[in-house]
C-alpha cells in the first residue's frame, strides 16, 4: 500500500489501557474473584532427576481446610498427556509429558502433586505434609554431558538428543580453504528467562452441568489455550472460554501449555469448583520456560578484500527434559540454522543445531527465540575476522550487507528475504551520529589505558509468520487474527479483536487503524481483546505479529464497515455512495466536506428503523480475518553499544546505546520506541547480568530476584532510537513489520562486540554471556 494512510495512523498516541492502569484499576488474574473459589499449591520435585516410589497424601488431605490432594495419576484421569512434536521436524524426539510427574521427576521444580484448599496458605501448609519416597537418579545438567554422557533422561528414547537440524549450501570446505582469514570461536550463552513481573497464574472454573470450562488466564495466546484445554481435557472447544484479562508481561513465557496450569483446570473439573493458582517467584524461576542455553562453535571465512565467503556453525543447546507444547522446542535451533549471517551476502554455509534433553527446567521460547544467538555469533565472528584481516570491522559489514539491488535475497541458509533495508539503516545511523568520532574516542581512551569499546551489530528479525511454520507442521497454533466491528445505536464502534495485550500497545495501534479506516475519532472506538468467547480464533501474541496481522484484519474490517455505513447513508440520502466520505465521525459530501449525516443517525436508523433503508437489511457489523501469505516479514536494524569496563572490578558500564530500526509502517512511534527499548533492555540483561545457575545435580542456585539479576534503571543508559524509513513493500496490505523482538535480537551482540573492543586494549577477549565481572576479570587475567 503506497498511498499515505489517514490519521491517527502514525500518531504518537498514548496507550489507552495505561490510563486505567496508572489509576490502579488494572484487573489481573490475581484480582479476579469467583464465588466458592479454592486455591491450589503444588508439591514440586526437589530433585533434578528422581524416581517417585510412593506418595503419601494422608496428612495433607487431613489438614483442616484442604479439599483435595491430587497426584499425577489423579490428574491423568481427566487430562491426557502430550508430546511437543512438530511436523516440520519429523525426527524430533518428543517424550510423553504428563501434567504432573507420575513415576519420574525430571527437573527440580517439576510439579508432582497438587493440594487444593480454602486458602493458598492452607494449601501450602498441606503441600509441605505430602510425603514422597524418592530414589534419586543420575542427573544430567550441562549440554555436553547430556549429549555425550551415559545417563539417559528418557530411557525409552535411547538418547538424550531431542533434535538435530542441519543445513549445508555452497562449497563450505572450499570457501574456508581459500579464505584469507578464518575466525573461529566457541561461544557460551547463559540460560535465562523472561521474568514477567506478574507471575503465571489462572482461575479455572468448571460447571459440570454443562461441561463448561471458563479460565481466566495470564497468557499471551488464549485461543491456543482454549484449543489445548479442550483437546487434552476432553471438552467441546466451543464450551471452553479462556479470558486473558490484564496480563503483567509475557515475553514468550506465557505462550505455552504448562503442566501446572492444566492441572489446575483438571482439579476444577474433578471438584466442580473454581480453583485459582498463581506461581510464587521461586516457582516462576524453576517452572517458567527458560531459554538460550547454547554452546556454539562458529567459524567465518573472509577474503583478503573483506568479502564474507562462508559460515560454519555447530550449535549445541539444552532444552530441559521435554519439548515444550504445543510449539515444540525446535525454534531456537531453527533460528540459529536459518539466521546465521542473515544481514549479509555470502555463498556457503554449514549449520547444525543439536537440541539435547537435560535435568533442568523446561526451555523454549523467550523473546527473540534463537535469533539473538545467531546474531551474536555472526557479529562477534565478523569482528574477529576483520581484525584478523587488518580490516575495519564496520567497513566489512557495510561491504557485505544485503542491498536493495539484491532483493529478494535468497540466502544460502535457504531463507528468502523479500525486504531488508540496511542501506537506509546505515544512512540513518550516519545522519544520527559521527561514527568515526565515536570510534576515535574509544581508541583514544584505550590508548590512555582505559577499557572503552564500541560494538555494532546488524540484525534481522523475522516477524509475523504465516501459517507455513506451525500450520504446515500440524501444530494447532493460529497465525491469523480477526477483528469484528459493530456500529452501536448511538454511533460508537465496538471492536472485538483476537489480538492480545501484555503491555506492548497493540490495542491502541489497532484502535488507531480502525479510526483511520472508518473515518472516526479515536475515542469513538472501543475494543475488547483476550476473550475467546467474543473474538475470531486468532494467534494472539507471539513472534512480533499483533500489529502486522491483527492490525491488517482491523484495517480490512474497518474499511468494510465504512463501506456499509456509506451504502446506508447513500440509500437514505438518495446519493451516490462514491460521492460521500466519512470524516471525523460524520458522513460528508466528499467534494465539499459538508456534513450530511452523523454515525449516530446511521446507527439509530439501522438498529431501530431499518425499514427506512431502501433495499437493504442493515448489518452494522463487519468482520475480517487475516493471515500473512508470506512465511514471515523481516524487520532489520543496527544496534550500537559503547561500554567502559572497570579494570579493577570487571564491571561493564553502558555509556551509550543506539538502535536504528526499519519496520515498515510505524502506526504509533511512541509505543514502538519504548517497545524496542524494552526489548533492548532484556537483551542487555542477557548480555550482562542474567543467568540461571544450576549445579551438576540440576539444582537451581539463584531462584530469587535477589540472586537472579534483571536490569534496574541505574544500570541502563538512555537508548537513542532512530527509525530508518525504506520504500514500502508495495503489497496490498498496510506494510507493517513487527517490532517486539527487535531490541532483544541485537542487543546482546552489540554489547559483546563492544566488550571485546574494550578488552582488545589488553589483548583479551570473551565469547560468553552474561559478561559478568568474574568472567571479565578472568579474561583480563586478573583472577
Amino acid at each position, binding site marked *: 500500500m503506497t498511498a499515505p494512510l489517514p490519521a491517527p495512523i502514525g500518531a504518537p498516541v498514548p496507550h489507552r489501557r495505561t490510563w486505567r*492502569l496508572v*489509576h490502579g484499576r*488494572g484487573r489481573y488474574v490475581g484480582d479476579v474473584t469467583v464465588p466458592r473459589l479454592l486455591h491450589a499449591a503444588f508439591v514440586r520435585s526437589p530433585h533434578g532427576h528422581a524416581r517417585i516410589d510412593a506418595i503419601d497424601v494422608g496428612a495433607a488431605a487431613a489438614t483442616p481446610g484442604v479439599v483435595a490432594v491430587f497426584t499425577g495419576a489423579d490428574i491423568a484421569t481427566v487430562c491426557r498427556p502430550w508430546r511437543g512434536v512438530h511436523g516440520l521436524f519429523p525426527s524430533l524426539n518428543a517424550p510423553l509429558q504428563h501434567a504432573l510427574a507420575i513415576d519420574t521427576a525430571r527437573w527440580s521444580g517439576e510439579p508432582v502433586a497438587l493440594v487444593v484448599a480454602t486458602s493458598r*496458605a492452607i494449601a501450602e501448609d498441606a503441600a509441605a505434609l505430602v510425603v514422597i519416597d524418592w530414589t534419586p537418579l543420575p542427573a544430567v545438567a550441562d549440554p555436553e554431558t547430556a549429549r555425550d554422557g551415559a545417563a539417559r533422561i528418557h530411557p525409552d528414547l535411547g538418547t538424550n538428543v531431542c533434535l538435530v537440524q542441519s543445513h549445508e549450501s555452497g562449497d563450505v570446505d572450499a570457501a574456508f580453504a581459500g579464505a584469507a582469514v578464518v575466525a573461529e570461536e566457541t561461544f557460551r550463552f547463559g540460560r535465562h528467562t523472561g521474568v514477567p513481573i506478574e507471575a503465571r497464574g489462572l482461575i479455572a472454573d468448571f460447571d459440570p452441568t454443562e461441561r463448561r470450562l471458563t479460565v481466566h488466564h495470564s497468557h499471551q495466546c488464549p485461543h491456543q489455550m482454549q484449543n489445548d484445554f479442550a483437546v487434552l481435557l476432553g471438552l467441546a472447544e466451543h464450551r471452553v472460554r479462556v479470558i486473558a484479562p*490484564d496480563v503483567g508481561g509475557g515475553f514468550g513465557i506465557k505462550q505455552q501449555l504448562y503442566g501446572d496450569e492444566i492441572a489446575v483446570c483438571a482439579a476444577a473439573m474433578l471438584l466442580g469448583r473454581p480453583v485459582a493458582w498463581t506461581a510464587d517467584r521461586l516457582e516462576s524461576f524453576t517452572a517458567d520456560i527458560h531459554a538460550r542455553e547454547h554452546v556454539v562453535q562458529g567459524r567465518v571465512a573472509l577474503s583478503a578484500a573483506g568479502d564474507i565467503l562462508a559460515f560454519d556453525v555447530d550449535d549445541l543447546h539444552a532444552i530441559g527434559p521435554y519439548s515444550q507444547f504445543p510449539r515444540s522446542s525446535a525454534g531456537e535451533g531453527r533460528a540459529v540454522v536459518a539466521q546465521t549471517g542473515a544481514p549479509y551476502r555470502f555463498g556457503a554455509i554449514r549449520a547444525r543445531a543439536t537440541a539435547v534433553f537435560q535435568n533442568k527446567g523446561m526451555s523454549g521460547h523467550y523473546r527473540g527465540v534463537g535469533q539473538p544467538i545467531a546474531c551474536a555469533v555472526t557479529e562477534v565472528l565478523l569482528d574477529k575476522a576483520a581484525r584478523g584481516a587488518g580490516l575495519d570491522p564496520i567497513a566489512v559489514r557495510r561491504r557485505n550487507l544485503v542491498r536493495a539491488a539484491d532483493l529478494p535475497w535468497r540466502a544460502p541458509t535457504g531463507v528468502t528475504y523479500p525486504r531488508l533495508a540496511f542501506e537506509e539503516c546505515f544512512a540513518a545511523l550516519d545522519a544520527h551520529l559521527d561514527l568515526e568520532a565515536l570510534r576515535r574516542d574509544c581508541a583514544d581512551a584505550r590508548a590512555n589505558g582505559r577499557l572503552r569499546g564500541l560494538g555494532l551489530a546488524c540484525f534481522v528479525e523475522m516477524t509475523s509468520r504465516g501459517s507455513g511454520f506451525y500450520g504446515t507442521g500440524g501444530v494447532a497454533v493460529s497465525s491469523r487474527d480477526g477483528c469484528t466491528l459493530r456500529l452501536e445505536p448511538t454511533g460508537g464502534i465496538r471492536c472485538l479483536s483476537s489480538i492480545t495485550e501484555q503491555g506492548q500497545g497493540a490495542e491502541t495501534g489497532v484502535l488507531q487503524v480502525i479510526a483511520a479506516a472508518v473515518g472516526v475519532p479515536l475515542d469513538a472506538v472501543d475494543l475488547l481483546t483476550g476473550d475467546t468467547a467474543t473474538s475470531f480464533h486468532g494467534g494472539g501474541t507471539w513472534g512480533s505479529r499483533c500489529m502486522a496481522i491483527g492490525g491488517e484484519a482491523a484495517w480490512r474490517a474497518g474499511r468494510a464497515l465504512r463501506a456499509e455505513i456509506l451504502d446506508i447513508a447513500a440509500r437514505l440520502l438518495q446519493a451516490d455512495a462514491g460521492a460521500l466520505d466519512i470524516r471525523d465521525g460524520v458522513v460528508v459530501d466528499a467534494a465539499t466536506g459538508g456534513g450530511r449525516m452523523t454515525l449516530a443517525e446511521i446507527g439509530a436508523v439501522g438498529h431501530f428503523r431499518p425499514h427506512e433503508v431502501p433495499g437493504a437489511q442493515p448489518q452494522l457489523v463487519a468482520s475480517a480475518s487475516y493471515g500473512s501469505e508470506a512465511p514471515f516479514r523481516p524487520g532489520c536494524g543496527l544496534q550500537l553499544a559503547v561500554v567502559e569496563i572497570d579494570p579493577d572490578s570487571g564491571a561493564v558500564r553502558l555509556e551509550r546505546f543506539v538502535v536504528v530500526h526499519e519496520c515498515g509502517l510505524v502506526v504509533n512511534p511512541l509505543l514502538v520506541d*519504548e517497545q524496542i527499548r524494552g526489548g*533492548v533492555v532484556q537483551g542487555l540483561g542477557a548480555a550482562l547480568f542474567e543467568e540461571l545457575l544450576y549445579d551438576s545435580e540440576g539444582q537451581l542456585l539463584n531462584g530469587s530476584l535477589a540472586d537472579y539479576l*534483571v536490569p534496574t534503571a541505574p544500570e541502563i543508559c538512555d537508548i537513542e532510537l532512530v527509525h530508518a524509513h525504506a520504500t514500502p513493500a508495495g503489497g496490498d496490505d498496510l506494510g507493517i513489520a513487527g517490532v517486539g523482538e527487535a531490541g532483544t535480537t541485537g542487543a546482546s551482540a552489540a554489547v559483546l562486540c563492544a566488550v571485546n573492543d574494550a578488552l582488545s586494549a589488553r589483548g583479551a577477549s570473551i565469547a560468553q554471556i552474561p559478561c559478568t565481572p568474574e568472567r571479565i576479570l578472568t579474561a583480563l587475567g586478573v583472577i
Partner: protein
Amino acid sequence: MPMIPITCTINGETVEATVSTRDTLADLLRDTLGLTATHVGCEHGVCGACTILFDGRTARACLVLAAQADGAEIETLEGATASGRIAALQKAFHDHAALQCGFCTPGMLLAAAEFLEDHPAPSRAEIREALSGNLCRCTGYQAIVDAVAAVAKGTEP
C-alpha cells in the same frame, strides 16, 4: 493460626480487622480489603510492585506483616489516586508510555512521588538511582525517567 485484632488507617479510613499472624500487609490489602492496586510480584521485597506508604514512607507490603500495621497510617495507590496528589505523575506516565503491562506501575508511581518530594529538581541519573528498587520488565526505563523528569520540571500539568 493465631489471630490478632488491629486498627489502622488505610487511605484515610479507619480499618478494624482481625488478621492472621502469618498474613502480610499485602494479603490484608488485597484479599481482605480488595485494594488490588497493590501488586505482588516476588514476595521477597525485591521487585517493588507492592510498594505502599507506611506512616508516610514507602514500604514493601509483602515484607510487612498485617499485624505490624496496628496503629499505622497506610496509603495505597487507590488512596493516592483519590487524593489527587500523584495526578501529575499518573498523567506523565500515561503520556510518555512509561508503563506497558502496568504491573510494576503502582509501586513505581509511589516510589517516584516520594523521591520527587525530597528531590524537586533531580538529574536523570538521580531519578534512575531512586527507582533502582522497582523492577520494570517491559519498558527500557527511559520513558519512566522521562515521565518523572517532566513532572519535576513542571512540564506535565
